[in-house]
């Protein structure tokens, strides 16, 4: 997608001759600082890594479909789960959410680009190169005696497994440096998003009149500044240990393995809120439009999101309930974990309140949004279970946790992202995605998701730990693992439908026009796709739904807000 030329109408700038060569187009995309192109590049790279990460998952599920399988060796399996996790979190989830954010935020706040366009480009390329570096490890990681190849220390890279004593060769270094590089890009994007939202809103758009998506990206980007940086610091420390003979995590020299866990999870937990908050943002834009009502309780949605931003920084050690912290420490983190569930959970009520009394239209974006609502409910509740520390002493490190977080990330975030694709693809390309293929995508993925991840809770309850390349027969795990693996087949076919849809619709989709969904935020005021300058005239707004005001001059929002 990155090398196709996007049809632009009324563009200011160098006139485009009808027959641009592919190299000219490629050059244009490589040097671009336009937030829309960069957004699409983020999304495109995320799709690429999604496919790769999915292959890694498929390999694992084939190996685990039956006990004592020999599909892959233990070494390969351990690389698979490490790379799958690292790829999906850093190079799929983060990048696709950045892509949508960078594309949409300037349009939704009525401005022409991000605050720092060149920094925007730098952030993307750092992220992309980080991903390439991570995957180069498959080729370049082989050290002496075959030690090396891709990282195999798990995506949390616990010490002292990552020390040079236990991780010979360079595979851990690829993990560390690739994420360091990508991390710098991530911080740059955080700086850019915060600055854009604070300093570039169009006239009349006070913070209380921004679309919820803008608020949520503001919180997410603000969190990024404090979330990625602990990981950066810990990785720098790991580099000091591995290259300069340092002892940060060297237990033989009095160092602490537990402090790596603290640093990692001080990053790791807020990170998952960094991922879920943009997913909330998409839902908060889609559900109102397809229910034909404004979002229920905009101020509380903002307050809850900000609260999550702060409280989520205090819950991290619920990933460490089994490491032997004192009882009062465990109890503290139980409390904060439960508390952060409150602003998270009440959002479901707000979306429910938005649907209530509406006229819900089940186009594909709304189908995915509805899937999100049910599934995020389940995911949040299994999170509450895990937050009860003694229950967690049994469930932690088992397939119950794996099921829980996939429920959040796939059942929640990915469904929301799919909804966002179907909702904003028309704006980005000027064409509608095919509705029939979209429904196939939805239903196949729904079936596959539930087959896999509902079932996956059971082996966890039956005592199956995670990160094992095979398991013992006779513990009652076999049937469930087989069902989990079968669900993966449905999901794979669904993703194929999706990719086919993306490509086919680009050439043959129904022309979308400016506002195919009869929506209310500023991005629907401009052509699809938008011209390079976004708005011919910078708009002035008076309410949260400027297009509602324009379409209903007799009953504008600013009378009621």
């Amino acid at each position: 997608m990155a090398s196709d030329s996007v049809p632009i109408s009324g563009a200011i700038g160098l006139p485009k001759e009808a027959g641009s060569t592919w190299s000219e187009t490629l050059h244009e995309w490589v040097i671009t600082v336009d937030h829309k192109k960069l957004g699409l590049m983020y999304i495109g790279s995320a799709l690429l890594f999604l496919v790769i990460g999915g292959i890694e998952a498929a390999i694992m599920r084939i190996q685990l479909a039956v006990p004592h399988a020999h599909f892959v060796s233990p070494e390969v399996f351990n690389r698979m789960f490490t790379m799958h996790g690292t790829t999906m979190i850093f190079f799929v989830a983060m990048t696709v959410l950045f892509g949508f954010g960078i594309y949409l935020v300037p349009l939704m706040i009525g401005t022409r680009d991000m605050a720092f366009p060149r920094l925007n480009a730098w952030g993307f390329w750092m992220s992309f190169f980080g991903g390439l570096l991570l995957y180069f490890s498959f080729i370049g990681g082989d050290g002496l005696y075959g030690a090396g190849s891709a990282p195999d220390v798990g995506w949390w890279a616990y010490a002292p497994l990552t020390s040079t004593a236990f991780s010979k060769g360079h595979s851990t270094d690829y993990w560390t440096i690739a994420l360091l590089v990508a991390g710098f890009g991530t911080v740059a994007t955080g700086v850019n998003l915060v600055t854009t939202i604070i300093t570039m809103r169009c006239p009349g758009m006070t913070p209380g009149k921004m679309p919820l998506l803008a608020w949520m990206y503001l919180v997410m980007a603000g969190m990024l500044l404090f979330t990625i940086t602990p990981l950066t610091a810990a990785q720098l420390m790991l580099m000091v240990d591995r290259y300069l003979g340092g002892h940060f995590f060297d237990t033989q020299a009095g160092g602490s393995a537990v402090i790596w866990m603290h640093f990692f999870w001080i990053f790791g937990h807020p990170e998952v809120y960094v991922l879920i908050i943009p997913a909330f943002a998409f839902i908060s834009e889609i559900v109102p439009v397809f229910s034909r009502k404004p979002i229920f309780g905009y101020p509380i949605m903002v307050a809850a999101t900000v609260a999550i931003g702060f409280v989520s920084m205090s819950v991290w050690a619920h990933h460490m309930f089994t490491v032997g912290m004192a009882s009062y420490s465990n109890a503290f983190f139980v409390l904060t974990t439960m508390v952060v569930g409150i602003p998270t959970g009440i959002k479901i009520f707000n979306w429910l309140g938005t649907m209530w009394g509406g006229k819900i239209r089940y186009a594909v974006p709304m189908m995915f949004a509805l899937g999100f609502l049910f599934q995020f409910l389940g995911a949040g509740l299994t999170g509450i279970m895990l937050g009860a520390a003694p229950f967690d002493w049994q469930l932690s490190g088992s397939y119950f946790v794996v099921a829980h977080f996939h429920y959040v990330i796939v059942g929640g975030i990915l469904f929301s992202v799919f909804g966002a694709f179907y909702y904003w693809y028309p704006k980005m390309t000027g064409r509608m995605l095919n509705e029939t293929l979209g429904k196939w995508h939805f239903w196949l993925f729904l079936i596959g998701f539930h087959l896999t991840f509902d079932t996956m809770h059971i082996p966890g309850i039956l005592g199956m730990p995670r990160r094992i390349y095979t398991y013992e027969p006779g513990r009652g795990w076999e049937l469930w693992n087989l069902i989990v693996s079968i669900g993966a087949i449905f999901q794979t076919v669904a993703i194929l439908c999706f990719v086919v849809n993306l490509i086919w619709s680009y050439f043959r989709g129904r022309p979308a026009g400016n506002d195919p969904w009869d929506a209310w935020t500023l991005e629907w005021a401009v052509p699809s796709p938008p011209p390079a300058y976004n708005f011919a005239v910078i708009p002035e707004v008076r309410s949260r739904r400027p297009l509602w005001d324009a379409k209903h001059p007799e009953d504008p929002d600013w009378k009621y807000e």
Partner: protein
Amino acid sequence: MRVACGSSMKLRHLPQLAGAWLSIARCFAQSAARNSTSTSIFAPDSTPADAVFGLSIFVLVVTGVIFAIVFGLLLYAAIKFRRRANDDRREPLQIYGSDQLELAWTVIPVLIVIVLFMTSARVIHSVQDARRPPQSMEVTVIGHQFWWEYRYPQYGFVTANELHVPVSNPAHPMPTFLELRSADTDHSFWLPRLAGKTDLIPNHPNSTWIDPHETGLYLGQCAQYCGTQHAKMLLRAYVDSPADFDRWVRAQQQAPGDDTPLSPEAAEGRRVFNNTACINCHAIAGTAADGRFGPDLTHLMSRETIASGISLNTGETLRRWVQNPAAIKPGALMPAMNLTDKELDEVTAYLLTLH
């Protein structure tokens, strides 16, 4: 309240009826799970696991009720407020919010959180801060890449991979307190039916305790990724009657010595063992072998399995293991010693004498 299954459980927050139901449910789970290879967390057989189970059921009920209510509301809204085919396309009433509703659905979750926190905190305290009674067993567990070392400081011997503990009944409680340490990377000790898991972290000693109510074999495995063969670091805990346990302890306390009379083949095997690098990693009490990097082999043949639970302990598997550990457990840290066939037969014969 006591139930026929011989176990007791205190439930402070549920009415008696729910308590009876729970105990019955547990009876079912236990009888299904007993004498089987179950590792279900819902078949607890020890006080810490019982306490966790009780809390788990409570949490499941609370979250289950929340799920049912919200799921029902979502389903209702999704169906009731669909746009009809004969819709007049007028926008519905635009509602922006409701302070009372939002207050209500914030206050109720806060109350639920308080309750869940209090019940969790109580169980945390009861399990983690349990006072060690004067009569208790002590075992030091040392996690290695990819096997378990067990030391019994009260009895002065070391064994590996198969844990023996005495059964504990409420009349004569005999809990086992386990000190958890690691020789290399992070591991985690998880016997789901006996207790929640606790990690073994180098330079960070931990402790946990179990008081199994029934004799039998309990299974588990390492639950913190520790390297290539993390999946094969299996746990086997034998809960013995007091008499059986005493017998086992006494047997473990014997030391064969270097001059025990052996058959010619086994004697030759002992010579090979003592003169090859075997003694650098392995220990056999009373002999020159006193290495601590590998499992203690003094009473190797008293164990049912080798390689941390993955193979039955027979002459044939022993021979295959010594010939090439990587053929059975690729990534295990024991190297193949490149012994000749004759030497392998001899060493195996020697190992088979280590009862």
